[in-house]
C-alpha cells in the first residue's frame, strides 16, 4: 500500500510498500491491510502507526484529520498537523521539541516583522519630512 500523510503546508509522509496500518477514530482503533475496501473516516487526535516494507513500525501523531483508503492500495490522511517519529516511547518528546521550535520560529518571525514595520515607518517619515517642509499647505 502507499501511505501519504498530508498537512496544508507539507507532505509529511509519502511511503510505498506499507504492509499494515493502525489508526484511531472517535469509535476506537482500527487496522487496515492491503486490499481493504474503500473507507473514509475522520480521525481523532491520536497516533497513526504502520509497518513499512522493511518490517519496521513507524509512528506519526496527527491532530484529527480525514482518513481515506482508495482502491485498497492507497491510504491518504489529510490532517491539520502531523509529527512523525521512530518510536512511540519518545514521540511525546519529539512533539514537544517540535512545538518549542515552532514557538521559537514564530517569535523570531514576529520580531523580524516588527523590525520591518518600524523600518518602513522610519523610511516613510524620512521621505515625507522634506516634502512637508517644501509644501506645508498641501498636506492637510
Amino acid at each position: 500500500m502507499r501511505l501519504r500523510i498530508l498537512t496544508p503546508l507539507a507532505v509529511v509522509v509519502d511511503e510505498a510498500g506499507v504492509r499494515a496500518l493502525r489508526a484511531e477514530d472517535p469509535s476506537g482503533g482500527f487496522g487496515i491491510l492491503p486490499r481493504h475496501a474503500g473507507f473514509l473516516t475522520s480521525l481523532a487526535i491520536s497516533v497513526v502507526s504502520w509497518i513499512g516494507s522493511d518490517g519496521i513500525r513507524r509512528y506519526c501523531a496527527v491532530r484529527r484529520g480525514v482518513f481515506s483508503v482508495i482502491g485498497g492500495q492507497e491510504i491518504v490522511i489529510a490532517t491539520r498537523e502531523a509529527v512523525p517519529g521512530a518510536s512511540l516511547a519518545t514521540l511525546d518528546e519529539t512533539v514537544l521539541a517540535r512545538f518549542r521550535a515552532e514557538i521559537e520560529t514564530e517569535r523570531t518571525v514576529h520580531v523580524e516583522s516588527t523590525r520591518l514595520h518600524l523600518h518602513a515607518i522610519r523610511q516613510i517619515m524620512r521621505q515625507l519630512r522634506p516634502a512637508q517642509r517644501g509644501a506645508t499647505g498641501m498636506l492637510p
Partner: protein
Amino acid sequence: MTGPTGAPASGPGSDPIERDPLLQGVQLRGERHRRWLREGDPSVARRLAQIGVLGWIIVVPMLAGIFVGRWLDQAFGSGLFWTAPLLMLGLAIGGWSAWKWMASA
C-alpha cells in the same frame, strides 16, 4: 503578552504547550506503550482474578444478607420472613456495586 513573561522563565511559557491535546494524546499513548513494554500483556491469571472480583462483589452481599436474615429469623423465630428479603436486598446491592465496578474498570 507571553513574550515578556514567558521568555526569561521557561515554566510559564511552556505551560500552554504542555496542555495541548495533541501532546497529551501522544503522552497517554506513549505511557501505555511503556507500560506494555514493562509488563507485557496481562496474564490469564490476572484476567481470571478480575472476573473473580466481579463474582465476589455480587456474592458477598448476598451471603451477608442470608447470614443476617438467618440470625434475625432465629432471634424472632419467624421462619423465612427475614432471610428471603435480605437475600434479595443483598443481590440488588451486589448487582449495583458490580455495575459501578464495571463502569470504573
